[in-house]
């Protein structure tokens, strides 16, 4: 039922490319899917050579030196999952902010403007909620910083481009939350994730119905399987889809494994 978990090759490729462009987007994943171990060593130490700020000298108290102290790791346990969700909510909020500043939105019918206003509101609320919640639970130093995004591949003047991207992001969000549920230890966080994922699913449905109103696409066979089950993604799959938009480097080396192995 579930795709086999595999190491994400994107990581290695990105690491190599980062030699040429140290600011290039790359998400490094480790420990995902391989027997609970953090198997993938951070492979970008060369990056230091290209660090113009030269701020990487910060002393590290850990006995084993952190491969790159400048790069934020999402963390472990529930905090790791919360940061993971926070990263996605940051992306969605950034995307809808850009949508509302773009040509498509400016000329869109009122109904579509209203819809994008709502989606923007919801994602900004989700994002800022996570910031407060994670900071309260784990401290600012363990809260994912504000990420930067590269959305240059999206044509914000084009309805098709905006709707297609919105659909991809919302569907990915649904799959991400569904796949993360079994990695959450605290019931309160699980319920919170549940409160958000159904709203993401409502969004995904609405966007899909906007793209193709007179159809079954709102919950199409492309995403819902023969058992009537929606998407469920592992973090590696999510970063493969969404990572291209994220410019800020961070690692996901310590995210918890699924509780049941399902």
């Amino acid at each position, binding site marked *: 039922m579930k795709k086999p978990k595999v190491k994400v090759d994107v990581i290695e490729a990105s690491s190599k490319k980062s030699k040429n462009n140290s600011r290039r987007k790359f998400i490094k994943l480790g420990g995902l899917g391989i027997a609970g171990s953090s198997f993938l060593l951070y492979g970008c130490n060369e990056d230091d050579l290209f660090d113009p700020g030269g701020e990487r000298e910060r002393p590290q108290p850990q006995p084993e030196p952190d491969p790159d102290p400048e790069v934020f790791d999402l963390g472990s346990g529930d905090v790791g999952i919360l940061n993971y969700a926070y990263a996605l909510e940051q992306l969605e909020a950034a995307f809808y902010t850009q949508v509302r500043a773009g040509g498509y939105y400016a000329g869109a019918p009122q109904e579509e403007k209203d819809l994008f206003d709502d989606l923007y509101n*919801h994602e900004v609320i989700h994002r800022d909620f996570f910031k407060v919640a994670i900071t*309260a639970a784990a401290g600012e130093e363990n809260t994912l910083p504000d990420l930067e995004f590269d959305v240059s591949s999206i044509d914000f003047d084009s309805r098709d481009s905006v709707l297609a991207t919105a659909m991809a992001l919302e569907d990915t969000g649904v799959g991400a939350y569904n*796949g993360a549920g079994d990695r*959450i230890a605290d019931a309160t966080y699980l319920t919170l994730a549940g409160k958000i994922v159904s*709203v993401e699913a409502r969004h*995904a*449905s609405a966007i899909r119905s906007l793209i193709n109103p007179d159809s079954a696409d709102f919950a199409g066979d492309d995403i819902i399987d023969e058992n009537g089950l929606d998407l469920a993604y592992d973090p590696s799959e999510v970063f493969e889809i969404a990572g291209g938009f994220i410019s800020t480097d961070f690692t996901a080396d310590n995210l918890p494994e699924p509780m049941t*192995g*399902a």
Partner: protein
Amino acid sequence: MSIIKLLDEFSSEKLTARHSSRREMFNTLGSFGKKAAAAAIPFGLATSGKARAATAAFFQENSAVSALQLALTLEYLEAEFYIKALDSGVIPGGSRAEKVYMQISKHETAHVDFLKAGLEGAGATPVESPTFDFTAGGAFDPFNENNTGQETAYAQLLALAQAFEDTGVRAYKGQAANLMGTAFLEPALQIHSVEARHASEIRRIRGLEGWITLDNRGEGMPEATQAVYDGEANVTQGGVDLTTLSYADPIIGDLTEAVTQAFDEPITAETATAIAGLFIVDEG
């Protein structure tokens, strides 16, 4: 198992008083070993079979099975509703609504089969389908069986679909915690978000937004459906009143409305059962 017995299983008194009933004991303790063994592969999935303390597992599997029985009952209701709706002739042929109902019907029927198989795989006997009365004792006529007229019947048929889908979303959400640590959790979440997709589309066909504002049931929804929306106006998440947060980007329009839209709220098994109970005449 009747829906009332199902409801009883959620009472903690019942959990501790089980030994007082031989039948109950058989149902739970007697099948526990089988359940625990099978629960490792309840949906035909390979699992890690992580060891759990027997006592914890007892309560966990028990509440998980109860959660799935509740889910199955709600899926029976939805599945039968959409089949009858499509058979009723009330939905205009070739319409968007017909396409949507067909797709939803396919999903709800699949959910019934999936949950039954999952429960059987876990060594539990799936609840029988109750007998449903979608007129709720004559209050509605969604299939135009009482010649209310096509137009009114169609409006009610859409309104009931919205109520059922929004209930489903809330009910699954409310049961998620009972499925923690079991292989049931992820598939239940995957059904949960499908119900949310359905809800959004039905609401949009009805001219509403796909999401719930405050605890508004929305224009044209019968007052009898208000229980589906009570509690949705909550603005406090994780102890934070989100109407008092200062947002890094400005919220468009009314903040309280936006906050309530951004989070769907769970309902308890009791509430879900009470809502479904309006449409149940005989408890299977």
